[in-house]
């Protein structure tokens, strides 16, 4: 009896519905990590492809010709780039896969989007500067800006989420803002070793410190964020020459 369905190839990662998902990434990128966390939260299987950013694959260059960056999610051959766009895409494309990262109420969605943009702008940009600026002064100044942003985020968490008794920005469960901010947690430890500054400090932002512990303990997060500080620092050196 001939089947009209194509034979499932060995190593071809598809989820139950026959979707093919590939994630192009770099193991220590916060932007890649957050997508991995979301895929885990949704229980979606995918093929992970580690990219060499010094020698970008044809697939990456074809899939993200505009920015040539990771992460790129390729869903049944169609590429989606920009981590926050990818996360929202996963909510739209897999609405029945357990968790939704964004709330359903339009105002709450706007609030979540606002803070996600704020995090990548006010924590993410300094993160980049700390890694790649030549002068220590520049790194320290960037760290100070990131700390200031963390204090603002702490205040927002206190006023809203803590006031409601919610363990996460997303409420009872991990949401959009949690994965966006949480994706930097491994790097905060690296930065402390690199320049001796704590971006996340329980003395300054106790609510966020407690939140960070809860986030990192979640099943979907474990094993995703880089936890070997020295390995990250060694890897970073390859980009600094």
């Amino acid at each position: 009896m001939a089947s009209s369905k194509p034979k499932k190839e060995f190593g071809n990662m598809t989820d139950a519905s026959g979707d093919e998902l590939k994630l192009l990434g770099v193991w220590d990128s916060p932007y890649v990590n957050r997508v991995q966390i979301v895929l885990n939260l949704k229980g979606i299987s995918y093929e992970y492809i580690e990219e060499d950013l010094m020698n970008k694959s044809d697939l990456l260059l074809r899939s993200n010709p505009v920015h040539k960056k990771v992460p790129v999610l390729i869903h049944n051959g169609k590429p989606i780039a920009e981590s926050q766009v990818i996360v929202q895409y996963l909510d739209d494309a897999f609405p029945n896969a357990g968790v939704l990262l964004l709330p359903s109420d339009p105002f709450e969605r706007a609030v979540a989007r606002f803070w996600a943009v704020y995090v990548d702008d006010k924590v993410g940009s300094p993160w980049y500067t700390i890694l790649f600026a030549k002068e220590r002064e520049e790194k320290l100044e960037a760290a100070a800006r990131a700390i200031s942003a963390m204090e603002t985020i702490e205040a927002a968490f206190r006023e809203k989420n803590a006031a409601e008794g919610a363990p996460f920005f997303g409420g009872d469960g991990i949401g959009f803002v949690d994965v966006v901010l949480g994706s930097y947690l491994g790097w905060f430890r690296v930065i402390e070793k690199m320049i001796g500054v704590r971006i996340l400090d329980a003395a300054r932002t106790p609510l966020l410190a407690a939140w960070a512990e809860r986030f990192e303990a979640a099943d979907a997060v474990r094993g995703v964020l880089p936890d070997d500080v020295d390995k990250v620092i060694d890897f970073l050196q390859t980009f600094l020459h």
Partner: protein
Amino acid sequence: MADEVILLDFWVSPFGQRCRIALLEKGISYEYSEQSLAQKSDLLLRSNPIHKKIPVLLHAGRPICESLIILEYIDETWSDKSPLLPFDNPYARSCARFWADYVDKKLFDSQTRLWKLKAGEADHEQAKRDMVETLQTLEKELGEKDYFGGDVFGFLDVVIVPFVAWFYAYERFGGFSVEEVCPRLVAWAKRCRERESVSKTISDPEKVYEFALYLKDKFGAK
């Protein structure tokens, strides 16, 4: 009134104009509130304490900030007519969001450097190259389509169209012809201007150029 809609805005802001176009497309009545950026009002500072910027949409007293976030809020709240993002096509939605992010990363930055930096200097030449490259990239993305979203005026068109009023300023500051660089984009701009929501909203190019000259005088490199 409980459902009152107020937009805190500044007349020439392309980011504010995005919101005005969306509100018009959806037929939402709202109060337009022109803001002074030099002396920010209490309402603005209370509504957007973190960034202190316009546009801010106030709906039933609650503030929504950041133009792209406001657009999605408008689309989701008044979802019964004129959808900006296609509600049934996740991939098309992701493309619109990707390109909106590209516009916000590249276009506004390039245009600012064009008026701010001194003509003839190396950094101004770079700003001009960056602007041309950005316009060419958008031209390529538009392709043969009538609109960025396809056959129908949508989210990405709303995101980009306020900047067409700045094309004249790009030409004056950059010393290049926008029509030569991106003829299809120019044709798209004409097509969009035929929509009332757009023609009523986007600024007069001469006024935009005058405003950019004022900014150059005040903040530009000496």
